[in-house]
């Protein structure tokens, strides 16, 4: 028991740190169950993959919070969240009100409710990211490439100075802060206009 708990904890930590190997292990251990469940509820194999990946992303985001502890096994969590997401998709298609998780009569109907918040928070996060990406697109060069190099490609300020032709990393840093200031303005301006 102690051992398996430790293992679960390590898996979660691996996911939080974007560890490719551990992510793959969790993926392999759980995707089939979600896929066959979604297929048994009128979805395709691809729907199953999509729903599973969304659930994995939610777990990833939850794991970013160091305080986060799972009250159940990772697999149980993923399946429950995936079920909720699929029910919600069916509900959005508005074709099958009796497919709603709350009155579907399924044994896990009540559990689904517990994951409602997790799914909702992730939806809000995705909207937030969309705004951020939109602001990034508006930013123009060289700011966009510079910020992408730093945040998405994990390049050091030393590398960036070389790539963008700044005489030293400090100059590149100053430029980076200027870019961030502009990004922030674009981002919040878009928020106000909404």
């Amino acid at each position: 028991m102690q051992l398996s708990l430790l293992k679960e904890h390590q898996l979660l930590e691996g996911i939080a740190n974007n560890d490719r190997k551990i992510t793959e292990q969790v993926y392999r251990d759980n995707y089939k169950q979600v896929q066959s469940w979604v297929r048994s509820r009128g979805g395709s194999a691809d729907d199953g993959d999509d729903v599973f990946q969304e659930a994995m992303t939610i777990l990833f985001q939850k794991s970013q919070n160091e305080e986060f502890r799972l009250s159940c096994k990772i697999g149980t969590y993923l399946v429950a969240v995936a079920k909720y997401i699929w029910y919600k998709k069916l509900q959005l298609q508005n074709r099958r009100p009796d497919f709603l998780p709350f009155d579907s009569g399924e044994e896990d109907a009540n559990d689904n409710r517990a994951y409602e918040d997790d799914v909702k928070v992730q939806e809000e996060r995705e909207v937030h990211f969309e705004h951020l990406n939109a602001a990034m697109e508006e930013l123009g060069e060289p700011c966009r490439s510079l910020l992408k190099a730093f945040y998405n490609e994990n390049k050091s300020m030393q590398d960036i100075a070389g790539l963008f032709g700044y005489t030293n990393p400090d100059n590149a840093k100053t430029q980076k802060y200027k870019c961030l200031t502009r990004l922030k303005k674009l981002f919040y301006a878009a928020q106000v206009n909404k």
Partner: protein
Amino acid sequence: MTTENNTWKLAEAYLNKSLNAQEVENLEQLIADNKNFAQEFQEVSNMLLSLKNNAAQKQFQQNLSNIKTQIKEEEQDAPRKISLRLHYLRTAAVAAGVALLASLGTNLWNNKTESNTSKYSELRKVRTEIEGIKQSQSRIIKVLDNKANKPPIENKYSGTGFALSNDGYIVTNYHVTEGADSLYIQTRDGNYYKASTVSFDANADIAILKVESKKFKFSKQGTIPYSFAPSKSGLGERIFTLGYPQDEIVYSEGYISSRNGYLGDSMQYRLELPAEPGQSGAPVIDANGTVIGIVTGKESKSVGTTYAVSSNTMLRMLKNIPQSNSINLPKTSKLGKMSRSQQIEKIQDFTCVVNVYK
């Protein structure tokens, strides 16, 4: 350096936890004293956290999609042969099924004198008991030999399917697709397309498939020539079917011999219509070009007795699935005044082989 740049620098260091105790204390003092700064610092920190988190999530999702691709490749590489022994086991199960079916039939006959209620429950019981046999034996699945020029996997089953809509919604039997790892349809022109199950009703023995390619069309003209009968047709009605017991499409004709099907199943018709393995899922069409049912099985003892799920059962099921609004069913039959061979000419482009890989 502007003060704004300083705020970024400070926030970055704070989030990286690279400030010393004194610096943290100074920062907290500044936040407490200066409301404008506090808000500025909050926004700046949020921005930095969002950028980092967005990038991390992208990286994570990139990993997920790489893993998915890797798993798919492995699954395709895995060999998928049914061993010879397993093949014989299947045949043995089929043989056992025949014997059981016959004995159950006698049983039902002997109980006929009992009261209505008990007869009814008896009937229902028999129905569930024979469910397994129906799947394996009386229904018309065909085990195909290995053939060249097919998708990479060998050993498969095949049935027939036909179009519900020109953009690739297909109806066939559930028992054809049951337990399938993957489904490919082969259209009249010989091309293979990957399909997946959209929905099914095991009890009615109906499965709805969709060709996965978004560009897929059965025909360039775009209109399905037949329509679907919304209610049951009458006894003695002349009907015909087009199916694929072999590579080539095969025509056969007959009539409705009972308005209820196997063991009085009201979702089915009983037909006098020759059918062979591979024809499961074929359309049953009346003289006006209206689809009245879907071939589902045949009686093993007699040659010509075939069962078909009625089209109204299928329509009822379609109404209840999430995808119902996106399936554009043909409204009218365009085959009314045509000769039979003209009708077949029009219909055949909308039929296909359903290949099942397990």
